[in-house]
């Protein structure tokens, strides 16, 4: 143990500070340039007309009955979707996280896949299930509210299962055992003891699901009946079809209010959740028993009926062509069909390239942001600043991807930053959309490193840089697999922002699929289904790998 010279010590201190500052400044500059600036510019357009600043344009939007109908539909859709997802997800959380059975990890990995499936794939899969040719065609659901809710629950089921399950597996079962021994039925013990214990996780999952349901875009575009719209699709409609920027701006503000309110609720729930998680660090699982028939039945019904059936049907129907059963739809993927600028295979290449770049950007920034957010400042103002930052980096999760895409188009089109013709815009927008997921995935990993552990390492002779490489980074490597998977899958399937930014001659796969289904003809829909199978398979493989490599208990908190 030798003591180093004074300059050496100074260098170590400076480099740590530089690192901390860089960790904060780079993502903030990035967020400001590629999220806040485009969004404010877009919103600002709504308050300006030929005479200058005005509220007239925006207030006229709020006077129209259409706006209120759309707002009502958005809130109803999000509320119903959330309630159904939570009710369906709670039994699943119990079966998959508190009970053990052969193949449990595989089932967990499979259940996680729908959440990252591209929205166009889900839209096409549900349409293939309920349209006139589909196996559920006799229900006459066609394009309806019910099919939208089914698709939303399909998406968000795993959010509920994961978030609630992680907490449930750590609840001490002896509390409910005590209630049982005092004469409570299984049901009563569940309602009076277990459910209140799970409340923070349920609230957090519900808030997140609500956000996702309120801002769904691809699904609505594909499955919505005539006259149906949400704030998100309305922004798209007003900007692209009517070029009515004031309306889009007003709706963006409405969306921002919804998102902010939901994030506040979610933040409160989350901080309570994290305190609760400290109670127990080991998982508590028992073998599945006959007495668990009720949650098991529900989980099986949801698993097969809602999650597996649409995907299986999609694969099955993609093998049907006009000339009969076969691989015709898949063969057509290599061909540039008339009116299309690219073949599906070319679009896949485009998608893989942009998604790889977006993933790189999102993961690099996500590592820095999550590191910053995991700090525990000693001062009250420091903690407050960090909480604010936490919420700001969650914003892209709920703000319309459409807003991001359109904001890019009207901001990054002139010096100092003229990227209008550059395809770099797409990965940048996709990275913005993926960033919150990366941050949420990595945060629990950073937070698992206690300050004491770093102190122990320092007292054993590790410099700040040494602690970073020998403690922090090895720890991070446990969560990074899942973060990479989420970033890649999200970018690969991103549709809202990309639909604005993709050049006609270089579409990404989701954009091309949407073009295919927007055209009439069974061949086009057949090709779209085949392309969806390929896209879903790509995404599924990526996520299954990530889930398999990554830790098994990262919560969505």
């Amino acid at each position, binding site marked *: *143990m030798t*003591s180093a010279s004074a300059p050496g*010590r100074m260098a170590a201190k400076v480099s740590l500070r530089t690192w901390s500052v860089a960790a904060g400044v780079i993502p903030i500059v990035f967020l400001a340039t590629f999220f806040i600036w485009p969004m404010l510019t877009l919103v600002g357009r709504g308050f300006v007309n030929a005479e200058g600043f005005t509220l007239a344009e925006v207030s006229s939007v709020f006077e129209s009955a259409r706006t209120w109908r759309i707002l009502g539909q958005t809130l109803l859709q999000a509320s119903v979707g959330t309630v159904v997802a939570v009710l369906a997800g709670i039994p699943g959380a119990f079966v998959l996280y508190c009970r053990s059975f052969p193949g449990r990890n595989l089932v967990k990995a499979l259940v996680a896949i729908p959440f990252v499936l591209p929205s166009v794939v889900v839209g096409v899969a549900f349409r293939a299930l309920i349209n006139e040719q589909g196996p559920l065609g006799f229900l006459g659901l066609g394009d309806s509210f019910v099919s939208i809710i089914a698709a939303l629950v399909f998406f968000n089921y795993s959010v509920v299962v994961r978030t609630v399950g992680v907490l449930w597996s750590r609840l001490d079962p002896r509390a409910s055992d005590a209630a049982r021994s005092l004469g409570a039925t299984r049901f009563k013990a569940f309602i009076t003891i277990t459910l209140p214990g799970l409340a923070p996780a349920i609230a957090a999952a519900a808030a997140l699901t609500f956000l996702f349901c309120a801002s769904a875009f691809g699904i609505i575009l594909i499955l919505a009946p005539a006259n149906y719209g949400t704030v998100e699709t309305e922004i798209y409609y007003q900007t692209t079809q009517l070029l009515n920027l004031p309306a889009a701006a007003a709706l963006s503000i409405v969306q921002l209010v919804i998102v902010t309110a939901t994030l506040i609720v979610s933040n409160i729930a989350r901080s309570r959740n994290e305190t609760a998680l400290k109670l127990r660090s080991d998982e508590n699982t028992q073998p599945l028993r006959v007495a668990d028939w009720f949650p098991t039945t529900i989980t099986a019904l949801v698993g097969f009926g809602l999650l597996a059936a649409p995907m299986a049907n999609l694969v099955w129907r993609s093998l049907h062509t006009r000339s009969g059963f076969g691989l015709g739809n898949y063969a057509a993927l290599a061909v540039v069909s008339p009116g299309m600028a690219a073949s599906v295979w070319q679009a896949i290449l485009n998608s893989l390239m942009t998604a790889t770049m977006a993933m790189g950007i999102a993961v690099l920034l996500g590592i820095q942001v999550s590191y910053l957010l995991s700090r525990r400042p000693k001062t009250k103002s420091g903690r407050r600043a960090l909480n604010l930052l936490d919420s700001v980096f969650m914003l892209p999760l709920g703000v319309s991807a459409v807003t991001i895409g359109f904001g890019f188009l009207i901001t990054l089109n002139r010096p100092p930053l003229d990227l209008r013709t550059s395809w770099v815009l797409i990965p940048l927008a996709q990275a913005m959309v993926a960033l919150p997921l990366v941050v949420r995935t990595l945060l629990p990993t950073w937070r698992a490193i206690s300050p004491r552990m770093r*102190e122990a390492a320092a007292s*054993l*002779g*590790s*410099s700040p840089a040494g602690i970073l490489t*020998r403690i922090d980074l090895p720890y991070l490597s446990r969560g990074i697999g899942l973060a990479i998977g989420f970033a890649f899958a999200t970018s690969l399937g991103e549709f809202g922002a990309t639909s604005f930014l993709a050049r006609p001659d270089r579409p990404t796969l989701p954009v091309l699929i949407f073009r295919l289904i927007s055209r009439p003809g069974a061949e086009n829909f057949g090709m779209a289904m085949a392309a969806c199978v390929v896209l879903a398979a790509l995404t599924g493989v990526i996520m299954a790998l990530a889930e398999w490599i990554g830790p098994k208990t990262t919560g969505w908190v």
Partner: protein
Amino acid sequence: MRGLQVANATIRYGELVAVDDVSFTVAPGEIVALLGKSGSGKTSLLRAVAGLEPLADGQVCWDGQDLKTTPVHERGFVVMFQDGQLFPHLNVAKNISYGLSKWPKPQRQQRVSELLELVKLNGHEQRKITELSGGQAQRVALARSLAPKPKLLLLDEPLSALDRKLREHLVAELGTIIRATHTSAIYVTHDQYEAFTIADRIAVMADGKLLQLAAPLELLLRPADRAVSRFLGQEEAIGSS
């Protein structure tokens, strides 16, 4: 002057004075216990010696040299925490050799087996941290702390997380091991039994102040004042004399 000298150490958290003008020394090879209730300032004082907490006033010196500008990792004082803080991503051997990164590999391996023998865990090199019992984990934590031959070992309630029987057994063993390696040590505890078993001298602390620093026997026979005798639970026996 050899060993550790703490002079007029004062630690403040905002308005609160956690440690108030405390001075003491630790001679080479000596074990000094800091004994006090929770909130008495003993852990803050230990953290200040380690360099983990800044001093509002006063000095921490080693061999007469002020350590004010020496950061934690260059002091050569190793902290052993209550819950061990073993690194869960490393196995037993890699935890113990964590502080030996500058040693050549053969010596490192030899040192690890030496220490495992010392803490009676021979052959447990490849065990995972998560597979250790509470007592085993604290033995590994001790081995890890002693491996780099620290100038000073700082133990922060190292046995508090264990049950009473194991604690009484381990504290004697801890003392034997630390003495065998001729390491100077500060042992923070709220438990009189531990302090009296392990320490050459005991510093009794309350409300951030050092009430008395004396050898165990002297402390019992000649407590400096009522506060000390009350703390030691001997008020009746001594107060009436």
